[in-house]
């Protein structure tokens, strides 16, 4: 088990509710794979730094968790398939700086 952090970017072609549902789905996949969710953050709708797929807004969500590499691979595979998810990024934060 390792600590991971994954950020998911969802299109604004769907409304916030649907985007949240997609985010919840990612969490469900994670728990099905035996992942241990430590923290989550919903950033909501944000303006993108540049246009992606003719869209300049998107919904952001961040998941902080412990999981095996297989669990992460499976989650990434499913995110890749999903039409609601435009982009995602997995990082392994070595040291976390906690902002109080």
């Amino acid at each position, binding site marked *: 088990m390792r600590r991971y952090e994954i*950020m998911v*970017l969802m299109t604004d072609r769907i409304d916030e509710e649907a985007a949240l549902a997609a985010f919840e789905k990612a969490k469900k996949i994670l728990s099905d794979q035996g992942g241990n969710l430590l923290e989550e953050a919903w950033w909501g709708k944000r303006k*993108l*730094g*540049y246009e*992606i797929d003719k869209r300049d807004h*998107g919904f*952001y969500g*961040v998941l902080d968790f412990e999981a095996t590499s297989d669990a992460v691979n499976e989650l990434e595979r499913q995110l890749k398939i999903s039409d609601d998810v435009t*982009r995602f*990024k997995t*990082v392994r*934060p*070595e*040291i*976390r*700086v906690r*902002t109080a």
Partner: protein
Amino acid sequence: MPPRSAAKPKDRNRPRKPKPCPFCTQGIEYIDYKDLSTLKPFLNERAKIKARRTSGVCAKDQKMLAAAVKNAREMALIPYTTR
């Protein structure tokens, strides 16, 4: 030590004393790509990463900063460039 402004003409060509690294002095050990307020000061108005000689960031932290900026760009948190 005499102040920098009072340098003799002879000293003008001498290399300047490097600025202290802003990350090391603040004790930041990990630069998070999500934390835009820490990344922004190291980008110029064209959204390019500032050179070490202007920002004074040490080699180790510049590497980490560059990686963080690139991650943030991929996730469209900051633009690649602004025209």
